[in-house]
C-alpha cells in the first residue's frame, strides 16, 4: 500500500445495497441480489478515476457482535485490518434497524461517513441529513445506488480526501461505567475505542474475548464483572440504550409527509398473500422454472436464436478458417494431418461449445432476473417446510437456484449458513444441482434424442430431478453426519423490486466472457489432448493417418479407456469405449462432454447411432451418471477450501457411488421396458421390473420410517439389530440383485 493510499470499509446490514454501491464506484462486478447475505467474502478495489483510494466490500452484519462466518469476516476486517475509516451504508426504509449498527460504529470510533441508500423507495417522508450529521459528527449523503442518483456527490469527499473517522461516547448505567473505568487503563491501545471493546466483551463478542485472553485480561475482566454483579438485565440495558437513542434520533431525523400516519401503514404487501401460500407459490415457482427452460431451449425461442447464431456467426467464422486451411492445398500426409489437427483437434471442440452461448445467455439472464426481483426469499420460506424435514433450512433453495448458474458461488454462499451442520450439508449438496455447463450438455444430447421441439422438456426434467436428488442427498448427509443438530431459519423477506437491468446485463456479460475464456483455454487444451491420444498409438505408429479410422482401435486413448469401459458395463455405458472417455475427460469442466462427443462420435448424429441399440436406457444412464458423478475441478477446489478435505472427499465418494447406482437402476428400468416393448423376454422382464419397482418403493418408505427411529447422532453409531435394520439389509440386497439380473439380461440381449 503506498503511503498516499487510503482505504475504507463498506459496512452495513444485509441487503442494504453495499455491493451495488461498491460496483458503481469501482466498476467492479461483485455479486448482488435482492436477498440478504449475497456477499459472503470480502472484496476490494480502487475507486474509479482515483488509484489512491481503496474500497472494501464486506458481507452484511446486523450488529458488531458477529454471528456466522460471513459476519465474522466483516468483524475481523474491522478489528484487525488496516484502514482509514468506515463508510456505513443504511437502507432509508429500515433506519430503525440500521441505526443500531451506526451507533456501534460511532462508539468504536471508526465511522467516517453515512450513506443512506434507497431514498427513492422512501415514500413516508424525508430524511434530515443535518440532524444526522450533528449526532454522529460525520458527513451524510442520501443516494439511490440502483438508479445511480447522487453517487458522484457521495464519493466527492473520498476524492477530496476530507473524511476523518469520528467517534461518540454512549453513557450506560453505573455498574457498567464502573467496569469501563476499571478495565480501560489496563487495556492496550487498539484501533477500536476501549469503551467499545469493553461493551463488546460484555455482549460476548468472541473476537474481543479472544483479544482479552491474548492480553491476559480475561480473568480480571470476568472477576470485575462478578464483583460489580453485572447480570443479564444490565447487558440488556446496553441494547435498550441503543434502541432508545435510535428512537430519539428517528423522531428528529424522519420528517413524515403530511397525511401519512407511519403507525397505520400496511405491513403486508398484497402479493405476499399469494407468494407465501404453499398451494399457489409451489406451482408458480415450478411454472416459472419451466418457462425459463422453455424460453432457453424451445426450437422457436432459444433454439431459434442458437440456430441463427450458428448460421451467421460461427459457421461464417468456421468457413473462413476452413478456407484458410484448404488454401494450404494439402498434398502430403503431413499437411493432411496438419489440416485435421487444426480443424478437429484445435477448433472443432471449441466451436461446438461456443454454439451454446445463446442458451447460456438466456438461462443466466432469467436466473439473474429471478434473483433480482426478491422472489427467492419468499420461495425459501415456502420450501423451508420441505427442507426442514431433510435437516437443512429453506435458505438452501437460494444456493440451489444460484447453482443453476454455477456451482462455485453456490458453495461459497454457504458461509451465510446458521450452523456448521447447515454449512457442510448445503455445501455438499450444492454441486449436485445441474449448473449451466451441465444443462447445455443435456440440451445438446436431448436435442439429438427428443428432437428440437421436446428437448427443453427433457432438459428441464433432468435439471428438476437434480434439485430433488440434491435435497435427498441433503437428507442423507444431515442424518449421516449431524443427526441431532437442529436447524434454525431466519430470513429477511426482501421488498419486491423491478430487476436492475444494468446488473443483469453486466452479470450476463461476465458469465459469457468467462464461458468463452474457459472454452478456449480449458476445453481447447483438453480437446487437443484427446485428439492427440486418439490419433497416436503405441504400435510403431507415432502419427496415424486420420483418414484411416480403423487405426483408432490401436490408439493410446483406446488403451486408456479399457479399464473404465469394464467398470461402466453394469450401467450400460461399457457397450462403447467412447462413453467412458467422454465422461472421464469431462471431469475438469463439464462442457468438455459435448466437445468430446463431437470428436469421438463425429457429432450428435454419431452419438445417436452409438446408443441406437437401447436409446432411452443408454441416454438416461449416461445423463444420470454425467449429472452427478463428480463436480468440476473448480467446484472441488472451492469445496476443499470451504469445508475441508474430509467433506470434499465425502462429496466425491458419495457422488460417484450414488450416480453409479442411479445409472444402474435407470439402465435396468429403461432397458427392461424397452425390451418389453420390443417383445423380448417380456415375462421375465415384467416380473423383474415389478420386483424392482416394489423394492424401490419399500426402500423409500423404510428410509422415511427408519429415520424417525434413529436415536443416535449419526448412522455410523447404529449398532442395534432391530427389524428395521434387517429389512433395510434385505431390501438393499434384493434391489441390487434384481437390478444386476435385469442389466445382465439386457446386456446379453443387445450385445
Amino acid at each position, binding site marked *: 500500500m503506498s503511503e498516499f493510499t487510503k482505504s475504507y470499509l463498506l459496512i452495513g446490514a444485509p441487503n442494504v445495497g453495499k455491493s451495488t454501491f461498491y460496483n458503481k464506484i469501482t466498476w467492479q462486478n461483485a455479486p448482488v441480489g435482492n436477498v440478504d447475505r449475497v456477499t459472503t467474502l470480502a472484496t476490494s478495489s480502487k475507486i474509479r478515476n482515483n488509484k489512491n483510494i481503496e474500497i472494501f466490500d464486506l458481507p452484511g452484519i446486523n450488529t458488531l457482535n458477529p454471528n456466522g462466518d460471513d459476519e465474522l469476516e466483516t468483524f475481523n476486517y474491522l478489528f484487525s485490518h488496516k484502514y482509514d475509516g468506515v463508510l456505513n451504508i443504511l437502507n432509508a426504509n429500515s*433506519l*430503525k*434497524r440500521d441505526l*443500531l449498527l451506526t451507533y456501534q460504529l460511532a462508539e468504536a470510533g471508526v465511522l467516517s461517513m453515512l450513506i443512506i441508500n434507497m431514498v427513492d423507495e422512501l415514500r413516508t417522508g424525508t430524511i434530515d441529513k443535518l440532524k444526522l450529521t450533528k449526532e454522529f459528527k460525520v458527513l451524510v449523503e442520501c443516494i439511490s445506488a440502483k438508479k445511480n442518483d447522487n453517487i458522484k456527490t457521495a464519493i466527492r469527499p473520498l476524492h477530496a480526501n476530507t473524511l476523518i473517522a469520528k467517534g461518540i461516547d454512549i453513557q450506560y448505567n453505573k455498574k457498567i461505567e464502573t467496569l469501563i473505568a476499571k478495565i480501560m487503563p489496563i487495556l492496550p491501545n487498539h484501533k477500536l475505542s476501549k469503551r467499545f471493546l469493553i461493551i463488546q466483551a460484555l455482549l460476548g463478542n468472541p473476537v474481543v474475548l479472544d483479544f482479552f485472553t491474548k492480553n491476559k485480561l480475561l480473568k480480571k475482566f470476568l472477576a470485575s464483572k462478578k464483583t460489580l454483579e453485572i447480570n443479564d438485565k444490565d447487558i440488556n440495558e446496553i441494547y435498550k440504550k441503543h434502541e432508545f437513542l435510535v428512537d430519539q434520533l428517528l423522531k428528529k431525523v424522519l420528517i413524515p409527509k403530511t397525511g401519512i400516519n407511519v403507525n397505520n401503514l400496511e405491513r403486508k404487501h398484497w402479493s405476499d398473500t399469494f407468494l407465501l401460500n404453499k398451494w399457489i407459490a409451489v406451482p408458480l415457482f415450478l411454472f416459472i422454472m419451466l418457462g425459463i427452460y422453455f424460453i432457453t431451449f424451445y426450437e422457436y425461442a432459444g433454439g431459434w436464436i442458437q440456430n441463427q447464431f450458428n448460421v451467421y456467426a460461427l459457421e461464417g467464422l468456421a468457413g473462413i478458417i476452413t478456407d484458410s486451411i484448404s488454401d494450404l492445398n494439402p498434398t502430403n500426409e503431413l499437411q493432411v494431418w496438419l489440416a485435421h489437427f487444426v480443424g478437429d483437434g484445435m477448433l472443432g471442440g471449441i466451436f461446438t461449445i461456443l454454439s451454446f452461448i445463446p442458451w447460456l445467455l438466456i438461462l443466466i439472464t432469467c436466473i439473474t432476473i429471478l434473483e433480482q426481483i426478491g422472489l427467492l426469499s419468499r420461495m425459501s*420460506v415456502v420450501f*423451508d417446510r420441505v427442507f426442514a424435514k431433510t435437516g437443512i433450512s429453506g435458505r438452501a433453495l437460494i444456493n440451489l437456484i444460484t447453482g443453476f448458474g454455477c456451482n462455485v458461488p453456490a458453495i461459497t454462499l454457504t458461509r451465510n449458513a446458521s450452523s456448521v451442520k447447515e454449512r457442510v450439508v448445503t455445501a455438499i449438496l450444492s454441486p449436485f444441482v445441474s449448473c449451466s455447463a451441465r444443462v447445455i450438455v443435456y440440451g445438446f444430447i436431448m436435442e439429438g434424442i427428443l428432437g428440437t421441439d421436446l428437448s427443453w422438456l427433457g432438459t428441464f426434467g433432468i435439471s428438476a430431478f437434480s434439485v430433488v436428488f440434491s435435497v435427498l442427498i441433503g437428507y442423507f448427509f444431515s442424518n449421516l453426519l449431524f443427526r441431532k443438530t*437442529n436447524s434454525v431459519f*431466519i430470513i*429477511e*423477506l426482501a421488498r419486491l423490486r423491478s430487476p436492475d437491468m444494468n446488473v443483469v446485463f453486466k452479470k450476463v456479460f461476465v458469465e459469457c466472457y468467462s464461458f468463452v475464456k474457459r472454452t478456449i483455454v480449458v476445453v481447447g487444451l483438453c480437446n487437443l489432448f484427446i485428439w492427440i491420444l486418439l490419433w497416436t498409438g503405441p504400435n510403431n505408429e507415432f502419427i496415424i493417418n486420420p483418414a484411416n479410422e480403423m487405426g483408432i482401435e490401436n490408439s493410446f486413448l483406446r488403451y486408456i479407456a479399457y479399464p473404465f469401459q469394464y467398470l461402466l458395463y453394469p450401467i450400460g455405458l461399457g457397450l462403447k469405449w467412447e462413453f467412458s472417455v467422454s465422461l472421464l475427460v469431462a471431469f475438469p469442466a463439464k462442457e468438455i462432454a459435448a466437445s468430446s462427443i463431437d470428436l469421438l462420435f463425429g457429432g450428435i448424429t454419431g452419438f445417436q447411432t452409438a446408443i441406437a441399440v437401447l436409446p432411452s436406457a443408454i441416454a438416461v444412464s449416461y445423463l444420470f451418471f454425467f449429472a452427478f458423478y463428480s463436480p468440476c475441478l473448480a467446484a472441488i477446489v472451492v469445496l476443499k477450501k470451504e469445508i475441508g478435505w474430509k467433506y470434499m472427499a465425502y462429496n466425491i465418494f458419495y457422488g460417484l457411488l450414488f450416480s453409479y447406482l442411479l445409472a444402474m437402476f435407470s439402465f435396468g428400468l429403461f432397458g427392461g421396458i424397452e425390451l418389453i416393448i420390443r417383445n423380448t423376454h417380456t415375462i421375465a422382464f415384467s416380473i423383474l421390473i415389478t420386483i424392482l419397482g416394489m423394492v424401490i418403493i419399500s426402500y423409500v418408505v423404510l428410509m422415511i420410517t427408519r429415520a424417525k427411529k434413529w436415536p443416535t447422532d449419526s448412522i455410523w453409531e447404529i449398532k442395534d439389530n432391530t427389524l428395521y435394520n434387517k429389512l433395510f439389509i434385505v431390501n438393499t440386497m434384493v434391489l441390487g440383485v434384481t437390478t444386476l439380473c435385469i442389466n445382465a439380461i439386457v446386456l446379453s440381449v443387445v450385445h
Partner: protein
Amino acid sequence: MKLISLNNAEKNTHYLVKDIQKSNSYLYRSLINIGFFSGKKIYIKDVKYGGTLTLVVINDIEYAIRSQDLIHVKAEAI
C-alpha cells in the same frame, strides 16, 4: 401478561417481548442481532405451518423465523 411461545403467538398482534429462552444460542443471538431483545416491541404478522414458522416485523423489516426449539416469551398485547 401471559407466558406464550413465539411459535404460538396470535397473528396480527403486537407483543412486547420480555424474555427469550436462551436454549438455542445461535437463534438467540440472531434474534438479538436483528433487534429482538427483551423489551422490544414486535409485530406478529402471521403464523404459518401449524406454529413452526412465524413471520414477524422487527424494526420495520419483515422476517421469517423458524426454530425447532420453541422460543418462550413473556408477552403482553399492546
